[in-house]
């Protein structure tokens, strides 16, 4: 009986496997999706950090944080125009009451007009994401800074008008495009982007070309009132099928200063599916090891009232020194463990020789579910960037469900 049933069961399973109800995926005028994350973080403090007595009066060893984050995204699609809205809301509870927070903001929200498709005009809040680097983007002139400790983290956009024109291939270039951007800074528009500038009109231009297997971009950004000109160039190229190199070079020029930022990086995929990312980054406006040590000594020796603003300035910046190195190795599905990706990243301050090590285990076992365990360790001598980090170790567990 069992033997007689087996072939029909197998055929039924095969039929089920090969079924595809494609009508379910017919495009709708309005679509939305969402994502909810539960994040549990344990921070182990560095009691020797100069910031520790400024933050804690008692001898706190660790803090527990619980966070719920919801991201909602919606799209209305009409004939030649579309409206995109993406918002985020979060609530954070911590055993340190000062940290407790509730927040809601619009990540991106813009109206896209494509009457002359493929050319397009976008008006609203937008995140540009210029550059080719993974951990650092010197040419990202018109964006909120990226966090090299978490390069893939979402960021909030800026209010702007952006026009894109794609002339396509010509004169030996396999593809080309031109992007023009207008970004206003006012008391109530993009006011938190560069808060020390109350009024400004910023104009940006990006020229892109694909030549054989190399992407090249040129960037020009001019501020009208500040009389500052920024320009930059980036490239990314596949040397072989599993080896990519990329780089960025940026200059910020004003009558008072001439800053240079540069990045060189590579990605390499080994035969056993390990992806290596290596990047070196330089910022001429950053501090030397001596300068940053001096700042930490000032925090240590000044009264809390004077030290706190200086500490806050350091903590806001993701990079404070001139030279950094970034190394990441991620293995795809090792030991035939499907949808499991462990990774190890090392962020090295090359001036003061302090380290930030990030170990992650990412597992997406079922549709729409992702689990992430992350352990971050900061190490370095006294008066170095990561050696003075308030948290010496950070353990994070995150479960995300998309709907």
């Amino acid at each position, binding site marked *: 009986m069992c033997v007689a049933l087996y072939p029909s069961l197998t055929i039924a399973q095969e039929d089920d496997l090969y079924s595809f109800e494609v009508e379910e995926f017919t495009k709708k005028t309005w679509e939305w999706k969402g994502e909810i994350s539960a994040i549990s973080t344990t921070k182990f403090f560095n009691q020797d950090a100069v910031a520790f007595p400024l933050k804690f009066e008692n001898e706190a060893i660790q803090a527990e944080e619980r966070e719920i984050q919801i991201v909602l995204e919606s799209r209305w699609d009409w004939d030649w125009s579309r409206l995109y809205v993406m918002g985020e809301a979060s609530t954070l509870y911590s055993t340190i009451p000062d940290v407790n927070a509730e927040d809601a903001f619009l990540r991106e929200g813009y109206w896209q007009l494509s009457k002359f498709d493929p050319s397009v005009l976008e008006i609203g809040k937008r995140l540009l*994401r210029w550059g080719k680097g993974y951990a650092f983007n010197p040419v990202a002139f018109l964006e909120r800074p990226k966090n090299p400790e978490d390069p893939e983290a979402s960021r909030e956009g800026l209010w702007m008008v952006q026009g894109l024109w794609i002339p396509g291939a010509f004169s030996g270039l*396999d593809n080309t*495009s031109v992007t023009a951007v207008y970004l206003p800074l006012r008391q109530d528009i993009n006011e938190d982007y560069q808060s020390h500038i109350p009024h400004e009109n910023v104009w940006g231009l990006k020229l892109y070309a694909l030549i054989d297997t190399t992407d090249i971009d040129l960037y020009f950004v001019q501020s009208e009132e500040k009389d500052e000109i920024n320009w930059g160039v980036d490239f990314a190229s596949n040397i072989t*099928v599993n080896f990519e190199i990329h780089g960025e070079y940026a200059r910020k020029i004003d009558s008072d200063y001439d800053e240079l930022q540069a990045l060189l990086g590579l990605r390499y995929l080994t035969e056993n599916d390990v992806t290596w990312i290596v990047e070196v980054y330089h910022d001429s406006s950053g501090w030397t090891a001596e300068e940053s040590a001096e700042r930490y000594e000032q925090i240590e020796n000044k009264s809390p009232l004077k030290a706190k603003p200086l500490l806050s300035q350091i903590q806001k910046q993701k990079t404070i020194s001139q030279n950094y190195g970034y190394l990441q190795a991620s293995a*795809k599905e090792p030991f035939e463990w499907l949808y499991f990706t462990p990774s190890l990243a090392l962020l090295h301050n090359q001036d003061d020789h302090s380290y930030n090590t990030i170990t992650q285990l990412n597992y997406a076992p079922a*549709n729409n579910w992702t689990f992430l365990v992350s352990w971050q360790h900061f190490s370095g001598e006294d008066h170095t960037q990561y050696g003075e980090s308030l948290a010496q170790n950070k353990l994070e567990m995150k479960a995300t469900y998309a709907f």
Partner: protein
Amino acid sequence: MKHFIKIIFGFICFFIFTGIVPEIFAQKTPQEWLVTIDRNLNPPQYEAYRKLINVEPDGSRKEFVLYTLKQGKEKVAALFLSPVSEKGRATLRVGDNMWLYIPNVGRPLRIASLQSVTGGVFNNADILRVDYQAEYDAISLQESQETGKSGKNLLQLNLKAKTNAVAYDKLEMMIDPDLESPVLIRAVAASGMLIKTIYFKNIKDFGEGIKRPAVVETDSPLYQGYKSVMIFAKLKPRTLAEEVFTTDYMGRIETLR
């Protein structure tokens, strides 16, 4: 002389009626077979929906739905429609260049053909398949001892990668001569090691002259017990602007549906 002409005429009639002449002229070169296979698998420009299923040894599955566009021999774009967590991701291939666009990351990242955006046995080169003739030269054709559904012996078309940038060094393509379609393809590394076997199943008439396997399945000795399946639906010719196959357009592929 008259007699001689009669004999020649008789021979010609014999060859025509016995089918020997059509057979001789019908024989295609390996390269012609490759062109035929490419055209029978897809029109020069098309759109399609595809479901990708990764099946684990315990039977558990992970499914992805992609909207796909193709132009010419070597331009392919695919947009993820499902699952929700992947929705909006897009991949683009132009020749040897491959990019992945993740909405949150927001800019195209270069990816390698041997990686896989979906996990499972299909790699990016399989998911963003361009015409075989764009990547491979047909080097030989031989009659195989294996038989197809029609009962006829399959043809084995041997392909060699044009450059070392191609995902597989050699392909052994088993062709059903009646259907002029592949039945299976063995992908072999330069070392001679079998990397994967790709099976073509369920010949389906998609209309507008497109008749091809609706199911492509793969397994690999490197992933024992795992298999991945790709199901085609709504495959139809579609003319698109060249600019659609550019990195700047990746975030807007949805607008073409």
